[in-house]
Every structure is written in structure tokens, then in C-alpha cells.
């Protein structure tokens, strides 16, 4: 397969993932960024980036983990760069506190890796290997992160119930 044909095939896979899985990408990004509009921008930026760099894709037939990695990175960048953007490029921001404050607080208290693993597991239904690829860690680390997140959340949810 020549480079152009391969790039077209990758583009077709990106489009398919976008068409069929967009709500999941958006949901995970929203969970990471904490703001639906910013998350929408993050997913958009991520896919623009994926399309631009599709010739660099050297992975296997399943392109999704690669896309998830780009989306997660874009969302993280949005979250971190919230105040880095020049005002001229963004509207004056919405309030920093999203709705569902208690649960946000609870989830936000988890370490970043646990949080992201949790979102990818529950909102995107990715298996451990795909989560590992998306987060750039080993599958064992994903298992440990999810276990830690479950333990912490279960304990705190029980505390909140009492």
C-alpha cells in the first residue's frame, strides 16, 4: 500500500471512529476538562490533529487507542491551559465550578491517572490494553489505577451516604 493510499485508509478509520464514537470522546473529554464547551473544542482539536498527522500513524488495525491518546492529551491541555490562552482567543470563561459539585470534588480528588483510567473504562468501555495505550502506561498500571480508584470512590461514596 503506498503512502497516499494508506493515509486515505487511516483517514477513513478516523472518520468512522468520529462518526460512531463521537459522544464517547466528548463524554470523556468533558469529564477531564470539566466544561462541555471546552471539551467539544478539545475533541475537535484532537481530531484535526489526528487528520493532519495521519501519515505518522504506524499502529495496528485498531486506530482507536491512538485517537483516544490524542483526545485525552488535548483535553488535558485544555484543562491545564485554561488560563494560558490569550483572552482574545476565548470568551470570558464560564464559572470554574461545574455542576454536580460534590461528585466532581470527589472524583477530582483522585490522582490524574486514576481519574483518566476511570473515565476511559466507564464512559468509553475501553479494555485495559486500550486504556494503557491511550494513557501511555502498561496494562498492569491501568489495573492498579482502576483498583485504587474503585477503592477510594467506594469508601467515600459510602461515607457520603452515612
Amino acid at each position, binding site marked *: 500500500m503506498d503512502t497516499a493510499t494508506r493515509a*486515505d485508509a487511516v*483517514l*477513513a478509520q478516523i*472518520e468512522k471512529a*468520529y*462518526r*460512531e*464514537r*463521537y*459522544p464517547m470522546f*466528548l*463524554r470523556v473529554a*468533558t469529564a477531564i476538562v*470539566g466544561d*462541555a464547551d471546552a471539551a*467539544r473544542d478539545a*475533541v*475537535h482539536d484532537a*481530531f*484535526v490533529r489526528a*487528520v*493532519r498527522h495521519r501519515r505518522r500513524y504506524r499502529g495496528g488495525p485498531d486506530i482507536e487507542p491512538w485517537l483516544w491518546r490524542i483526545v485525552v492529551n488535548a483535553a488535558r491541555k485544555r*484543562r*491545564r*491551559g*485554561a*488560563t*494560558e*490562552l*490569550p*483572552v*482574545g*482567543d476565548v*470568551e*470570558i*470563561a*464560564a*464559572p*470554574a*465550578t461545574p*455542576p*454536580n*459539585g*460534590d*461528585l*466532581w*470534588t470527589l472524583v*477530582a*480528588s483522585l490522582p490524574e491517572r486514576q481519574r483518566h483510567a*476511570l*473515565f476511559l473504562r*466507564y*464512559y*468509553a*468501555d475501553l479494555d485495559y490494553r486500550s486504556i494503557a495505550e491511550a494513557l501511555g502506561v502498561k496494562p498492569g498500571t491501568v489495573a492498579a489505577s482502576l483498583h485504587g480508584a*474503585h477503592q477510594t*470512590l*467506594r469508601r467515600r*461514596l459510602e461515607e*457520603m451516604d452515612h
Partner: protein
Amino acid sequence: MTESHQTIHRALDGLVDEPEDHGDWERVLTDAGRATRRSRLVRFAVAALTAVGVAGAAVVASLEDDRPSGIVDLALAAIGDGPVIHVITRGDWGGSLVDLSTGEVTPVHAENEIWLEPGRAARYVSRFGGKVTSDRVMSAAELSREVSTQLLDLADRYREALRTGRAKVVAEGSVEGRPVRWIRLGGEWSPSSEDGRSHLRAEEVAVDATSFEPVYTRWTDDGRPVPGTGQLILKLENLQADEADLSGPRAPRGPVAIGGAALGRTLGRADLARALDGRALWLGSVHDGLPLVESRVQEFRSRTDPDDEWEVVEGVSLFYGSLTKRRAGMRFRDNTKRFVQVLEGTRAATMWRGSELATDVPEGSLLVGAGRTAFLRRQGVLVSVSSPELVDVLAAAAALRPVGDPPASRGLDFERLALLVGRAQRVPTKGFAAVQPRPLVRPDAKPIQRGATRGVTVVVYEGGGARFDTRAMESGLQRALPERLQTRCFRVAGDAVTSGGYGTVPRGAVQQAALLAQPQRGRIPIAKPPFDACELGGGFGRNWLPRYDFHWPLEIGLTARGRSWFENRAAARELAHFVRTGPRRRARKAMRQGAPAPDAARLRDPGRPGIRVRASGDRFTASLTASTGRRFFIEIDGGRVLRSNTKSLARTT
């Protein structure tokens, strides 16, 4: 799934709602194309902008008779003279400063300034209300990568349009009262299944009717201006190298601040009166029919190095509105209904976006942004007020008072004030040339394929148009499916499919057309009709298993190959679902902990007699023969999938 997993699952479900948004793939492609062109920007920007600045009169003169001759030569000739580009633009939006005692509204502008010396450096400055909010010197490559270079991109597109003759003078008009000519830079026709027609999205540049300098840019849909996309061009000049002002600070390369916002303990009225050194403000226990339902400490945390201590700014968060019903044992702020949120602090915080702007707001005034958030400062306390309705933002900001003070009337008409604020944020422009949308399926197009299922029909036309009719869809599906359905038609080769394109049609509504297999600029080649099958779907598992997979419940086989593919996919999905649910799921979990495979009899499902199960040692194998005669299998070893032939048709096992 264990009970605790289910609890967490429910809690997370309540955290972020399942979106129904399906994105905008066309915009992704458009922006990706733009971004790709941006890499060419540095090479061409000088030429293009010089052409605009120096040869403006020649440009427009040649546009008048649609002959772009001479533009490129002039542009290239200009490169040697003034290598530095200096541009200042002002957005078609910004903010408004509202004097709360008089109701006077003053526009506050957001401006971007770019200095670009290709091969050396670039400087990007942004200002809001005259205050510098960002000033960074970087390489030209960093500039194009890191900040919005819309004007420079425009120059690129402008130049391309001029070169190719796609640019046309389409209308006369004015910008802020200044007579202009509107030049349309080609544009792209995009299909819309909303109305079954193609629409023109195009960028336009206004050039001064006398000097021919570009003064304004905007995007248009079918020739009509798209609100919020306009930008004034305040300055555009070409300077010599030694005239470039590249003296700003270097762009930081180190880590950026990370952190977040979290709600802390609940504040009673007495706590609130003491908060922020006794300077906290509120709107009373009820404001304009909205009760105070949450009053909490608000913490903003940030740090730039993971080894640093958190920098914590403590404030107050008040929420007027309503709470949701209990979900996962908790009630949350309900932002789907009318609400007002107030955030307060004694200093700006990195993670309190926009709060640094509040430090410059004069006491007694209110800074309203393009969003529905406003900032003010009162006795040293910084406050942001947010609400979905601008009129609520204004009324709440005016009503803020120290805890214990009675409400005071300011005598302002907030409805009128909201209108004034909206107007102050827009640059007045006149003139446009409307364009008629084009039908997606031409009236004389010849139908070549027809199919139907469950009350839905499809007709595929020569050339690639397809018309879906969902009006007679079965009532059960009407209830279960979302309002808009994704559609696709495709060709089949083995298990793989080649898509003929995607479309969207409304559920149970009038007949609509989706554009398929139509070659579009920047799009990959796609399969052309005749197709093997079409399908319609949408939604992520509210009504079907698996919960986390996209569903195409309406399958329309147009050929025998297409019908076989659907049969095979159904069997593969059935088998994949089988091995990840019920006793198989529990067994796989135990097997991952070292348990052997249970007896095959315990793994079978009496409700699915077609699925055969064999078990031995650490393994079990499930198999199912599709109606086409093809046998599918999934072999589980130690709880994990060892081998299967379902993966190309069923995603999750």
C-alpha cells in the same frame, strides 16, 4: 459487575450526562485542511499581506473584472522590500463595561497584534480593554502552532483565492459606516440533511471603497453573515527588518500551571457573614424567585511543579436555583433550569478563569464578557456572576450586597440593558449577497436501488444521492431511537466495508435526503453506488446492549452480499455479547484470578440454544453458526480472549 462497581457506575453516570451531540466532521476536515495550509503560511504570508497592503488597489481593480492577473507577481516582488508583517485585529466581540449607577454601556475590545519576521521570530500580543493579557516572542513556527493566526491564515486563503480567480466582488456595503466592497473568497458547498440541500460557507473580506485596504473579515452561510465570526483589521503594514518590535518576553517553555476547583464545607448564614474577612456578598436567601440552595467554600488550587505546595485561593460559591433529584445518594446543582451562580474571592486565581480581569474593573461597574459571565470588584472582593440569561447576570450583579443588608433597588431596566450590552459587542456592518442553497438530489436523478425495513425505505440514485423516508417507521423504533439518525450506505468485501458516506436524517419526519458518494474537496475517495447495504442508527445503549457501542438497528440489505454481511455481523455480535455477560462474565473474572473454567453446562444460556459451549481446564470456547452457514467462535483462556474470528464484525468481547 459487583455492587460497588454498579454504585460507581451510577455515580459516574450522574457526573457527565451522555451527550447526544454527534460532532461536525466536515468542520474537522476543513480545519485540518486549514491547519495543513498553515505550514505553508510562513512562506506565503509576506507575499500575501504585502500584496494586500501595497498592491491593494491593483488587487481590487483586477477583481472587478474577475481577472487576478498581476497579483502574484506583485506579491512576490514585494517580498524583498518589507519582510516584517505587522497586523492588529479586533474581534467582532469582546466585552462591555456597564456602569451600575447610570446604566451606561461602554464596549471593551479584545485585540490581537502580530509581528512576524519569517526566519527570525514572531511576537504575539493580545489585549482586552487595552490591558495586555498575553505578550510572547516565539519562533515563526511556534506562532503558527500555538496561537490563533486567523488573519495570517486569511492572507494565505486570500492569496490563493486571488491566484485562482475564485475571489469575487459580491456586494457593496459598509463597516462601522465606512463604505466597503465585499469580496467572497470562493467557499465550499456542504451537504446538509437538515433540509436536504447543499449550503455555501464562504469567507469574505471587506475592502475600503476608496483605499482598497482590507478592513474587515467574516464568514458567511449562503451569503449571510455568521454572527461572531467578524474581525476588524485595524492595522496591516509591511516594515523593514530593523523596524520589527520583537522585544516582548520569550514564550515560557516550562510547565504550565495545573490544578482545579473544588467545593468545600457548607456555609450557614452566620459563616457567610464572616467569610472573606466579613466582606462576602450575597443576593439574600431568595433572589428573583431563585432560592439559595447551596452556599459553600470554594477552593482554587494550582501549581506549576508537582513537587511544589499547592497554591490555594479560598473563596465563596453561592448557587441560586434548584438541585437535581437524588442520584447515587447525592443531589447536584441543576444547570438545566434557570440559575444564578456567584463566585467570590479576595484575589484572582489561576484556576478561576477570567478573574484577573476583575481586578481592573472600576468599583461600581460590571465587566460583561461575550459569554454569560460578568466580573466586578466590591471593597476588594472579586466576584463573578454567571447565568444562562444575560438579563439574570445583570440583575444579580446589581443586587449583590453584604450579608445582612436589605435589598436596594437601582432603578435599572435590565431587559433594555441586556439589549444594549449585546449591541455594544457587535461591529455594525451592512451589505451581503445571499446565495440559494442547491438540492442534494437533483430532480432528474435516476433511481438505481431501492430497499426497505421496518417501515423505513431508501432509494439510491445514480451519482450517489440517497433518499431515506422514515415517516412510516415502526412505532417501537420511533420511541427508542434519537431524534436524528445517522445513515450510511456501503459496499462489502469479506468482513470489511467501504463506506459510501454518511448522512443524517430526522426520525419519523418528512422525507429527507442524505448525500452519499459525492466527491468533495479534501475528502477521501469513497465507494460509489450500487451499494450492498444501507443502515440507520444512533444512540449509545440506553435501549440496547451492549451499552457502549453504536447501534445500527435498521439494516437494509440491497444485495445478497449485503444481507449476508448483516447476518454474519448479527451472529458475531450475539456471540461477543454472550461471552461478556452473565455466568461467562463471572467465570472469566474468576478465571483471571486463577480459577479453572466451570463446566460447560453452567456457562450455557437456555435462552440461546444456538450457542454451543465447550470447556476444559483453563479454557472455554463458545461458538455460533450464522444463518449464512458461517461458524463464529471465541476461545477464552484464563478469562481473556485467546482467539476469535468475530473481531472484524463485533467490537467488544
